[in-house]
């Protein structure tokens, strides 16, 4: 099994004709993701050429992508100025899962979009996230396909390349994954650690979950409590930003220690107090996962 995306995923790509959108659509198709539609307003009626000669229809609206091509998932590669609008359009179209890769969306736009998406009962992953990959089944977003392999580990992370680093090390050690989820580096995200944990918690094949957090906010602290109260399998953790100074944004819009809140220390402590062993460096994640699986 897997969470969020699998063999049943029928994907519409919003912004398929853009530079990033077209590049990553080919990557997703090469990985085996079923891309059923592209959406670019004004380019409806054209087609997008897949890597093996497939022809993907392009529509003007998400509504058409759902009605005519049967999309049930969308991914957003639309520029920041229009991304919140694209997310809300996707929520209105009836897809139940939306992945927003776009970085740099104004936070006030996202405050409105999150409320809108919640009201329509859709799940949003991101924004400012690398997306999600269920090894051997489907990938939606930009996570490189060659670093993953099927197996029993679930991965949840706020970061992109740090996730790749950790996942590549897991794969090299023979520890495959059910699904790797990048929840995003923005302060307001649609799917947080607890949401992803809940999904993994009802996935029969996930035997251990890796939580890769970073400074800023209290999402990891809440996840730690949730794990100790609800999770019936082990989790291990890593937190980036132990050397980050307070009050400075570390690349991600959400990676900032405000006052004395959101430090790596506080998050690591919350993990440890709730029975989640914490890796001191990325290489130790593999060791902790091996230990968790051998118990």
């Amino acid at each position, binding site marked *: 099994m897997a969470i969020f995306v699998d063999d049943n995923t029928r994907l519409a790509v919003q912004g398929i004709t853009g530079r990033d959108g077209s590049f990553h659509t080919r990557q997703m198709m090469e990985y085996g993701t079923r891309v059923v539609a592209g959406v670019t307003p004004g380019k409806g009626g054209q087609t997008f050429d897949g890597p093996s000669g497939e022809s993907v229809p392009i529509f003007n609206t998400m509504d058409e992508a759902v009605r005519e091509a049967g999309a049930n998932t969308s991914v957003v590669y639309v520029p920041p*100025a229009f991304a919140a609008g694209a997310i809300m359009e996707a929520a209105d179209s009836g897809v139940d899962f939306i992945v927003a890769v776009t970085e740099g969306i104004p936070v006030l736009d996202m405050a409105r979009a999150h409320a809108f998406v919640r009201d329509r009962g859709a799940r949003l992953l991101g924004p400012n996230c690398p997306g999600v990959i269920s090894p051997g089944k489907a990938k939606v977003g930009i996570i490189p396909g060659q670093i993953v392999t099927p197996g029993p580990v679930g991965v949840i992370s706020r970061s992109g390349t740090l996730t*790749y680093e950790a996942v590549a090390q897991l794969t090299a050690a023979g520890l495959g994954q059910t699904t790797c989820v990048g929840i995003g580096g923005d302060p307001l995200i649609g799917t947080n650690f607890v949401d992803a944990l809940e999904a993994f918690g009802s996935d029969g094949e996930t035997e251990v979950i890796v939580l890769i957090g970073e400074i800023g906010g209290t999402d990891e602290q809440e996840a730690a409590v949730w794990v100790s109260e609800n999770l019936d399998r082990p989790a291990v953790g890593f937190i980036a930003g132990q050397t980050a100074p307070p009050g400075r944004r570390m690349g991600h819009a959400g990676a900032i220690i405000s006052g004395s809140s959101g430090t790596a220390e506080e998050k690591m402590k919350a993990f440890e107090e709730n029975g989640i062993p914490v890796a001191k460096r990325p290489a130790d994640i593999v060791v902790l996962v091996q230990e968790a699986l051998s118990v």
Partner: protein
Amino acid sequence: MNVHEYQAKEIFRAAGIPVPPGEVADTPERAEELARGYGGTVVVKAQVHSGGRGKAGGVKLAPSPEEARQHAEAILGMEINGLTVNRVLVTPAEDIATESYVGVLIDRKTQAPTFMVSAEGGIDIEEVAHTNPDAIRKLVVDPRYGMLPHQAYWLASTLYDDPALAKQASRIIAQLYDAFTSAGASMAEINPLISTDAGEVKAIDAKLSIDDNELFRKPSIAEYRDLSAEPWAETRAREADLSYVKLDGNVGCCVNGAGLAMATMDLVKFYGGEPANFLDIGGSSNPDKVVAALEIITSDPNVEVILFNIFGGITRCDDVANGIVAATQSIDIKPPILIRLTGTNEELALQILADAGFSAFTSMDEVVERAVQMTEGN
């Protein structure tokens, strides 16, 4: 992006918030001239992107124009939390009857603009939230409807029992929400909001942080950026579309991805070293970006060794290697450079780097440990 108090006050005034007059001076003479113009006692306030200005001696009451000049002399050029004061705001002193706090920020948990008000003004709101949370009234604004009149009044009625004052405060709270959204802010604060003996409610301080992601569509706000308040390296980083934060150590770091960049800094510390910076070079192999990154890192005289940590996922390692080779050929770099590359086409990349005479690695631990060993004292 932070804006100065006097700039935040301009934005607040434009939204209709009653803010006493005030002008900035960059010389003591100008401060004296402004004080004379206002007559009576004025306040001379350091304009710098830092809290704790009062404690640092950057806010002074001046009963006479001469004293305004003397205070300006002392404050201009002063360092507050490492930032030099280039300007002071001169503003008439007010008769303060009561002080309260009004602030709004984007709250991560409620995912919405969230107001906090307290009748305990002129204080550190974070501290009050810890020590006396009952003294704070909170309101989550639904961003789709904005601040509703009864909500603004509900907040204001916490601050004042007198309905005439509460009515004024309620209008100010609604105006603050308008200023917050129209400026594209992530935080706006009036601390303190005062009432005077004459029964007027006014904002005598103003704080505003702008969401960087708004600047592309708010050119008039973007113009408020004070380049003199920002180190050269940060300006250069922004222009090159890199994220850079200077730290105090001596191991220069250049990494693709924010999370991996933080983890690299932490690993430097793990091996007994101190990172000189956070730098996220992004997903590009563009040599121009590598040049900018190297210029920024080497502008810090503490840097003794430069460490690249690149995970090639979608970006191909050989592209990045070529970018690094091209960049280092175009500028003269003194500190030794260690490079770690892993991912797509890493063997090819290692060959390119070896041919160009670089020490190249594939393990993150190995390269960080080696970099730390190359610094003084290790």
